[in-house]
């Protein structure tokens, strides 16, 4: 490992920009977020970037690192670069606001479009729903529920790049958790929404989302589940909720 990292950071705004090069002291167990923070504190006070928790829970610090979308707070420099050279850019498939900050409004709007809001069927006065941890539906939801909304899957998805209407892996993954939640009352409407253009059937099964998800979730598996559910519903074989 070299003593100094050669770091190219994209700087600009909605009108365009270019890479600026910085020499950053290398340290043991240094993360990409440590590198960006060093640049902001010591070399470029005007550098814009997002972070909050620094421990992989908030999902706000994702960036393109040497061409791949990554959560920067949990990515060590030595994992992303063997030669001490780093290229850091804002996430793909989202408009840039400034430097490393991108506009995630459309990403989250698509969550709403995918029917990602829980629709209760009972009130607080009803007894609590008894759902066993080993029920198949609960296990399906469990496998998909730990999404931190970081946008890494969305940035890595070539279908999102080619089809701006596509809801994307994260929103459909969230919809899958609700499709498997029997307390939710919007099941058939949700399946109808996500069957339309830009929904689950727009997924080309590249499986990049599963390969890139920092939380090791598998949105492709969730979307495949939605494809099966919607196909069954279209054939009149699905259960209506």
């Amino acid at each position, binding site marked *: 490992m070299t003593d100094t990292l050669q770091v190219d950071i994209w700087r600009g705004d909605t009108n365009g920009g270019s890479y600026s090069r910085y020499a950053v002291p290398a340290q043991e167990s240094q993360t990409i977020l440590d590198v960006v923070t060093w640049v902001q504190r010591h070399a470029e006070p005007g550098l814009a970037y997002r972070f909050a928790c620094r421990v992989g829970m908030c999902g706000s610090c994702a960036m393109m690192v040497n061409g*791949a979308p990554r959560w920067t707070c949990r990515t060590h420099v030595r994992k992303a670069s063997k030669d001490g050279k780093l290229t850091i850019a804002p996430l*793909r498939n989202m408009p840039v606001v400034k430097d490393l900050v991108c506009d995630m409004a459309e990403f989250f709007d698509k969550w709403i479009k995918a029917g990602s809001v829980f629709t209760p069927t009972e009130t607080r006065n009803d007894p609590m729903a008894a759902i066993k941890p080993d029920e198949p539906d609960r296990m399906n939801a469990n496998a998909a529920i730990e999404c931190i909304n970081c946008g890494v899957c969305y940035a890595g998805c*070539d279908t999102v790049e080619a089809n701006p209407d596509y809801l994307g892996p994260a929103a459909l993954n969230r919809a899958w958790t609700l499709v498997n939640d029997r307390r939710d009352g919007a099941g058939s409407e949700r399946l109808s929404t996500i069957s339309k253009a830009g929904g689950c059937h727009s997924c080309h*099964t*590249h499986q*990049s989302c*599963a390969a890139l998800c920092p939380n090791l979730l598998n949105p492709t*598996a969730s979307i495949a589940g939605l*494809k099966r559910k919607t196909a069954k519903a279209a054939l009149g074989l699905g259960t209506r909720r």
Partner: protein
Amino acid sequence: MKLPPHRRDPLRIAAAVQRLSGLALALFLPAHFLVLGLAIESPEALDSFLSLTQNPVVKVAEIGLVLLLGLHFFGGLRLLAVEFLPWSPRQKTYAAGALAAAITLSCCFLLSVTG
């Protein structure tokens, strides 16, 4: 040509192979039907054209064609399994299986034309 990092996963490459093999077969099919159409219009012309298949270069191209067909067929079965069967964690094994089946098919064709 170096693939960008988000396209280097074997399953992403398998998806690209599926598309490219489909595209190549789609380009081949009109020519294939055009030649078959000669059987109606002029059987002699068809026989004359088919004599080209004895050319070693055409034989090699045919093996490539069978490989493309195998890749697209077995890769397509893999995709149908992904979308309509319960999810399996062995996705890369299935992709490798589809590749192995396609290579086996083209090797069988190679043996049949050289044997």
